[in-house]
């Protein structure tokens, strides 16, 4: 019982195949309440698929997912969102026909269970914090890519998550914007939200997370304290191998 209070996410033995391709192979992940976990790995390692499994967008082939003490393995993404799992998409999926503010209102009234008035207040607050305040009444289809990415995060926050899944949100930011993003994520975390963050911009990631998981070919390759894990020989080999 005590574990349910301290562990927001307990995923065990997750596997997923697309045809003959094993994208996720026996992955287990635990996230403590209030913890920030970073995930790195080469392109195609199965990181986003792992998010889809945790968020419920894809059903698992095998394994169990327990969120806040409740087994949610067979539930839909909608149920998990209403339980407090918020997620962003690596390729933004805004509601194009609606304004930025309306995008957040949908999330706050459904996933966040708020009334329209509460939702409006919290949405405006989130937009201001993420620097989208001036774009509140802009149609989402008019946004440039960086703002679309910001909107992804804003919309996920509007669902009032207890566990926030961030999928590559720092790519393409300037150094200054990146610092701002790191500060924002630290604030979110300080407010008690647990975070799993997939990111290629490693220095931003290492500035925030408590623990790092390295995924390669759909499996957990290494796990541990961020700096140590990132500097370990096998991780450097993967990364140098890619960057060389």
């Amino acid at each position, binding site marked *: 019982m005590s574990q349910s209070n301290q562990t927001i996410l307990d995923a065990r033995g997750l596997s997923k195949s697309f045809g003959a391709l094993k994208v996720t192979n026996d992955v287990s992940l635990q996230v403590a309440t209030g913890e920030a976990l970073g995930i790195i790995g080469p392109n195609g390692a199965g990181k986003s698929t792992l998010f889809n499994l945790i968020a419920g967008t894809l059903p698992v082939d095998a394994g169990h997912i327990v969120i806040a003490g409740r087994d949610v393995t067979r539930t839909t993404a909608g149920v998990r969102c209403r339980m407090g799992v918020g997620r962003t998409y690596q390729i933004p999926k805004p509601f194009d026909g609606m304004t930025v503010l309306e995008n957040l209102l*949908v999330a706050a009234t459904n996933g966040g269970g708020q009334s329209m008035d509460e939702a409006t207040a919290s949405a405006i607050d989130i937009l201001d914090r993420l620097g989208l305040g001036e774009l509140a009444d802009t149609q989402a289809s008019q946004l440039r890519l960086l703002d679309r990415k910001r909107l992804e995060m804003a919309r*996920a926050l509007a669902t009032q998550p207890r566990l926030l899944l961030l999928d590559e949100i720092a790519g393409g930011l300037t150094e200054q914007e990146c610092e701002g993003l790191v500060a924002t994520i630290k604030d979110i975390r300080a407010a008690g939200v647990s975070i799993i963050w997939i990111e290629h911009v490693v220095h931003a990631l290492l500035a925030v997370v408590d623990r790092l998981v390295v995924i390669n070919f759909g499996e957990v390759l290494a796990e541990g304290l961020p700096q140590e894990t990132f500097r370990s020989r096998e991780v450097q080999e993967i990364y140098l191998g890619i960057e060389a």
Partner: protein
Amino acid sequence: MSIQNWARLGLLIVAVAILVSGPYWASRGTMRLLIEVFYFLALAQLWNLLAGYSGLISVGQQAFVGLGGYAMFSLAMFAGVPILFALPLAGILTALIAWPTAFVAFRLSGPYFAIGTWVIAEVYRLVFAQIPALGGGSGISLPAGLVKAMASGRSARESLIYWIALAIMLVVVLGIWIVMRSRVGLSLSALRDNEEAAVSVGVRTRSLKFVIYIATAGMTGLIGALIFVQKLRITPEAAFSVTDWSVLVIFIVVIGGIGTLEGPILGCILFFVLREYLADLGAWYMIILGTISVVIMLVEPRGLWGLILRWRNITVFPVTRRK
């Protein structure tokens, strides 16, 4: 409220007052025309709610027009329900039948859903053509006694039908406006724009689709019931006509401006103007309608309302949601 809002509200009230007083100033022919305008506008707004605001493109709303009409005739003729009570009951019955229909239709999505709804409507048409008690393929007329029991005298009856049609139209337009300003409306638009993302922000997409489909079907059934009370005669061909209740309705919404409340109103006006002048041309009439819609889609995909927006950024009902 700002002066603009007061002006807008004032204009709406004046417009509604003029329409409500119709039976006191309009000729019989004008009233018949206005009744048609009202129910076509209501059908167009309902289709716009489904397709424009919620992304559920149905080509089978004639199923519910027909079901409403036949439910109305059956209730009045076989169950002895007075016509005024049978109208809302027909709407409710249609919604009830739409419920299992939705289970079938929602097994499909996108273009398959569109075709599926059409096929379902055809099935209903064929079924009703097989029922001898309802006149089979040649249809049936509403007995004069039942019609006369509606109101004392022909003009009183026509006024009554006029006011019911107007009321239904106003309820539909205002209802959609209220829905679209609520969280339900936001969720519907989210569902239309990106269903996967809608699910992942907690929208109950499945139940939402069912509710909106069934509610729309019920209102469409009520309108169908009224249409055939006015026409006094129903046949499977007329009741389940894809041309009348889907093609023309889609024409109205698309040329007016889909995903807005103003668009279908403009589209409806244009449609009736064209019809008054062109209906005598037979097949050419439909060819001209088709050509006009193609030209409008090419020039301004947002329809007539989009053309007006280019010229001036105004809004009557601030619930436009389109890409």
